[in-house]
């Protein structure tokens, strides 16, 4: 078992024939992901990476029966692409592109919600169910199959966390990179209950960072609904106030969104909070032993 995606998930790629889209779609195909086609306007009818290209998402969905779209279009077109996917009946859009305007994401997410479509990202590594389905840009070989669920705002910390978990002799069910922009799709609040419900996931690693209050919301939810052990790391304990730390949403505004308040909230909810990402693996081992 896993969450959200598995070996049978049919995926299309928006921005299929572009440089980034092509490169990563090929890597995903190599991993075993069922990519059944792609969309690039005016290239409909062509074949790319052995898969059909369509002019619109609507056609692509009608022909292939895809339920997930991986989005690689340039930043200015992300909003449009997400809304197109939502109206075409896609169930989950995974938005990899970095640098989409916040206003566009606000509108696109509201529209997606209206049409019952979930989104992941933007500006994220994507989602991977180990040894079954990779929808994104993460290095697939790090993610060995196992019983730990992972959810993270940061791409490289996802890899760091997964690598440590696997080096400890465990593995990953599904890892979701949710992105660090001011407005993102699925977050801890939606994904933690999915891991709770997944029989194969025995432990959850959650990686957050400064800015916003999604981790605080997660703490509240964990206290009320999550029975599986959770190990957490919050990046940015040493980040200065008022500075954007790489991710557009990683900023401490005034006294809000600090690592300290998030760590305290999670600890109060019974989460094992580590002060350095170097300790994630060991903390998971401890949590698994206690079970």
């Amino acid at each position, binding site marked *: 078992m896993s969450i959200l995606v598995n070996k049978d998930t049919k995926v299309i790629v928006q921005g299929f024939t572009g440089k980034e889209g092509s490169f990563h779609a090929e890597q995903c195909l190599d991993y075993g992901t069922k990519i059944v086609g792609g969309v690039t306007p005016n290239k409909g009818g062509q074949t790319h990476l052995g898969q059909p290209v369509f002019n619109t998402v609507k056609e692509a969905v009608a022909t292939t029966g895809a339920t997930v779209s991986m989005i690689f279009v340039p930043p200015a077109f992300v909003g449009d692409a997400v809304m197109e996917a939502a109206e075409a009946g896609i169930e989950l859009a995974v938005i990899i592109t970095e640098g989409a305007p916040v206003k566009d994401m606000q509108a696109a997410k509201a529209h997606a919600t209206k049409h019952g479509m979930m989104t992941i990202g933007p500006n994220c590594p994507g989602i991977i169910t180990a040894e079954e389905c990779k929808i994104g840009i993460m290095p697939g070989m790090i993610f060995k199959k196992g019983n730990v669920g992972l959810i993270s705002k940061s791409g*490289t910390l996802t890899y760091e966390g997964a690598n440590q978990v696997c080096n400890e002799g465990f593995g990953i069910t599904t890892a979701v990179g949710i992105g660090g922009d*001011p407005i993102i799709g699925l977050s801890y609040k939606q994904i933690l209950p999915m891991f709770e419900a997944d029989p194969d996931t025995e432990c959850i690693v959650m990686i957050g960072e400064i800015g916003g209050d999604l981790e605080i919301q997660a703490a509240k939810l964990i206290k009320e609904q999550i029975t599986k052990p959770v190990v957490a790391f919050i990046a940015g*304990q040493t980040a200065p106030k008022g500075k954007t730390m790489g991710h557009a949403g990683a900023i401490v505004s005034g006294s809000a969104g600090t690592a300290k308040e998030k760590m305290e909230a999670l600890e109060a909810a019974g989460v094992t909070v580590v002060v350095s990402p*170097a300790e994630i693996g060991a903390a998971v081992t401890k949590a698994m032993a206690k079970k």
Partner: protein
Amino acid sequence: MNIHEYQAKQIFKKYGVPTPKGIMVESVKDAVSAAEQLGGPIWVVKAQIHAGGRGLGGGVKLAKSLEEVETLANEILGMTLVTHQTTAEGKLVQKLYIEDGADIQSEYYLSVVLDRKLEMPLIMASTEGGMNIEDVAENTPEKIVTIAVDPAIGFQGFHGRQLAFGLGLTDKSEQSNMIKLASKLFKLYMENDAEMIEINPLIKTGKGEFIALDGKMGFDNSALGRHPDIAEMRDLTEEDPDEVEAAKYGLSYVALDGEIGCMVNGAGLAMGTMDTINHMGGTPANFLDVGGSANAETVAKGFEIILKNPKVKAIFVNIFGGIVRCDRIANGIIEATKITDVNVPVIVRLDGTNAPEAAEILKNANIANLIVGDDLGDGAAKAVAAAKGN
């Protein structure tokens, strides 16, 4: 991206948000002629820097004669202004805004920001104008009115009524003035991809009119491409020169106070690396994200920027190679040490794809001050020890 008060007021004018008349100048002579042109009898001489708290820092002063304008312009222009929002070193004042004095009856606060929780713009207003809004929020939260506006429906009459009644306005023309102003501000926010607009104070005159006495605006960097007029307002002298230089090479850099230079791929891991160094008793000198495709050129540039800081005693290169193979990065690092004169110990930790090959390459390179870290914890510990001279 942030802009100056005088620029914010240009945009206010375009949208019909009332502001006092004013002129931006860069010399004392021009300050006096600007004051003459405005007519007086009272002027405000205001330092133009990208930071709040200018008044308390001595950067905003009232003049009652042209001579006084001259004296104050002389005093403020070229001064280094330190406020609660600048660094301890402060900011050099290179521009002044000479403005007509206003008839202030009472002071309000009005802003539009993104509410990340509600995922829509939020109008915030208060009768406690001129104060730091964070202090108001902490001490007297009941004095702040907040109204979330769904962009799908835009600013409606009911939003305006909530605002006017929330602020306790009872005079009908005052209510209408406030509602019109807020509606214009919301339009400005949406049409220009603003990140935040703040008017503090927004004053009410004896005639019941509302005027923006100050103006602060920030914009979504990701949307500047479609607003060339606003992108043009960027004042690079207000930004950290090293951050600007780094950005040219696709690097994201923030200077800190410590001794260990950090070069990392990915923003989260970069912050996590700083945290780990701190936890092990060291101090990070900077945040530096070299991006997803670290190569010899970006690594060399990173070394150059880090080494500009004389406090740096060691550099920790922490790369988790994903799609980019570690052996390639290892060669890039060796290449970079040849381009740049690296005179402090460099601790390199490479993990991910082809990590063992990369470690082999680094060991065989025989570079004197290059130390290999086995994992994140080991690398950070070695960096902390190296910075302490061990």
